[in-house]
């Protein structure tokens, strides 16, 4: 996959996220006291260019889905700002919100539970037209059948039900539905994780074809680091609700500048036995701290093999550490030496 042209990288971002936070309040205990909350997303900033794929990676619970749902406005923002095409969308309502829903769509992990079993495929894919109260010029059925063709489904199956389709085909149905209103950004939350290995590649190829043909942007959430390498232009690594590193996909995989990125990459299973046997592992000790009670200083210091005293007291800001690269580590420049051993 090619990187987006330099023109699009310098173009105004399609999506701009600034200091976005979501704190879920926990029910206060019997003794009142200070209300505690889960800092699911805590001051996250990034942007996505037209035609670009930005991936969010990180361990379970680090806030990837919450970030996606905030941007799609399926959740209310606690603080910070989401701008789409230069307009602040963080608190819009009513007709403005409905218009935003045309531009930003979501595709979820589980094609089984995200489709209504009692609706025909035609009704599922055509639902966005109804919700928006619009009829495509060529008629709803023709428009839906064109979408079905576009995602590799047989248009003759318009009247079939989801149970008659395999997992990969169901994910094609969700993708067709997401495309109906010609969105500019699709948030894909683990879109291939539930699919069989032999079917994943079909859906990944489809997503890439659609991006090429329609100029779509993707915010891609996934835990499979090989899939992320394949599909992304840039990658943001999250840890306990914050972004710890963000960079172009090649530089990030080849020369990580945050110890957490290094740990993630060196833990990812590599489907090549000789390389797997010879590579240097950087296995993390300990457990992910609770987002209710995150550590002081650098959030990663409890597991970081590079941690110094400074890390326990001073929060490292996400800062530019090289051209097009940001890292939230006090000692980012020392990471390559650690990686080399």
């Amino acid at each position, binding site marked *: *996959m090619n990187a987006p042209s330099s023109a699009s990288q310098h173009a105004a971002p399609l999506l701009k996220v600034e200091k976005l936070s979501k704190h879920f309040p926990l029910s206060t205990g019997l003794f009142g006291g200070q209300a505690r909350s889960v800092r699911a997303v805590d001051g996250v900033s990034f942007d996505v260019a037209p035609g670009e794929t930005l991936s969010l990676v990180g*361990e*379970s619970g680090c806030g990837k889905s919450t970030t996606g749902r905030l941007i799609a406005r399926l959740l209310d923002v606690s603080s910070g700002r989401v701008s789409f095409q230069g307009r602040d969308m963080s608190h819009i309502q009513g007709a403005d919100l409905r218009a935003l829903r045309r531009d930003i769509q979501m595709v979820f992990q589980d094609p089984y539970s995200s489709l209504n079993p009692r609706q025909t495929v035609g009704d599922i894919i055509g639902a966005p037209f109804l919700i928006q109260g619009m009829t495509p010029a060529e008629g709803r059925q023709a428009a839906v059948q064109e979408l079905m063709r576009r995602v*590799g*489904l*047989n248009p003759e*199956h318009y009247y*079939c039900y989801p149970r*008659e*389709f*395999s*997992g*990969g*085909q169901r994910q094609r149905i969700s993708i067709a539905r997401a495309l109906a209103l010609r969105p500019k950004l699709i948030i894909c939350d683990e879109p291939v994780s539930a699919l*069989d*290995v*032999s*079917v*994943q*590649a*079909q859906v*990944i*190829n489809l997503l*890439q074809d659609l991006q090429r043909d329609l100029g779509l942007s993707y915010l891609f959430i996934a*835990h*499979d*680091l*090989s*899939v992320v*390498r*394949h*599909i992304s232009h840039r990658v943001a690594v999250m840890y306990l609700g914050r972004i710890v590193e963000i960079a172009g*996909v*090649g530089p990030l*995989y080849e020369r990580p500048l945050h110890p957490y990125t290094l*740990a*993630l*990459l*060196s*833990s*990812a*299973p*590599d*489907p*090549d*036995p*000789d*390389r*797997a046997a010879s590579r240097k*592992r950087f*296995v*993390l000790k*300990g*457990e*992910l701290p609770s987002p209710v009670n995150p550590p002081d200083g650098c959030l990663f210091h409890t597991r970081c093999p590079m941690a110094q005293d400074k890390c326990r007291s001073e929060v490292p800001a996400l800062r530019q550490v090289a051209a097009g690269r940001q890292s939230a580590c006090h000692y980012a420049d020392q990471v390559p030496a650690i990686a080399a051993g």
Partner: protein
Amino acid sequence: MFVSVRDLKVHFPAEEGLVRAVDGLSFSIERGKTLAIVGESGSGKTAASLAMLGLHGKAARISGEIAIGDAQVVGASESTLRRLRGNRMAMIFQDPLTAMHPYHKVGEQIVEAYRTHRSVTRKAARQRTLDMLARVGMADTQRAFDSYPHQLSGGQRQRVMIAMALCCDPELLIADEPTTALDVTVQAQILDLLKDLQREFGSAIIMITHDLGVVAEVADEVVVMYAGRAVETGTVRDVFYRPSHPYTWGLLESIPRLDHQRDRLTAIPGSPPSLAGLAEGCAFRKRCGHAASVPDGLCASQAPLPTDIAAGHSIRCHLTDTGRAAARSNPRQPSASEVQP
């Protein structure tokens, strides 16, 4: 050979026809070695491992031979099986919660499991449990002992499960997707732990997974399953560097890589077949780009038998040596096929 499985069949009578969950599986393992069984959802991996432990209910029709050391599993009495399960083999499941009692302390559960199979005092069993918890890397063993399953993280529960499985020094450990639900960082810890314990105790391990990365990390020998049959069997280097079955080719070409970006993934068209009433012939033929180069429509009429193509390397495919070489030099470019539900 310590473990030897010959022509294992696990069939379930069902309304839609006989479900051949496992249909003629053969492999063997030496002590201290790891065999990976890799296959997609529904390919029969769990059905095969439950057969090895003699854990199938009455509905299953099981035939063939499973030898663990000098003991035979198929046809063994329930008391023989119980003894085998405690003393010679143990299993780790994907979801430890299904194997643990929710309202008993995990330490007590290990003590119970140990005392069922060894006549030792409660005090000795308790000490053994604490030792095992330390051995699997639980930091505070006393606290771990006194925890209930829901108080532990996913990774900790999997460690406890491994401690329980290993407390009786099994000679054979069957691990069914032990890390599928875990983050890559924790997965790396658990896989390393299993390797260490194997080195220490010399157990044979059967690792069941759908992840070719995990296979490359841990396996000495590999069985690739498709629709209940082993389509390719060989050493890990045979399967990754000299793959010889069209399905294995398809899998290896369709997965994205961690070390470089592929231009485009070569997807296997279609989806895995339903096992109920699977017709004659090769189960992969509808997705195989090479069936046309096999004469006489053999792929549709006859199921290929296992054939040795080198010492210890066998496949089930009708392609001849020359046919295979030609197929390999001319990789199939599957059309973006429109797949039928």
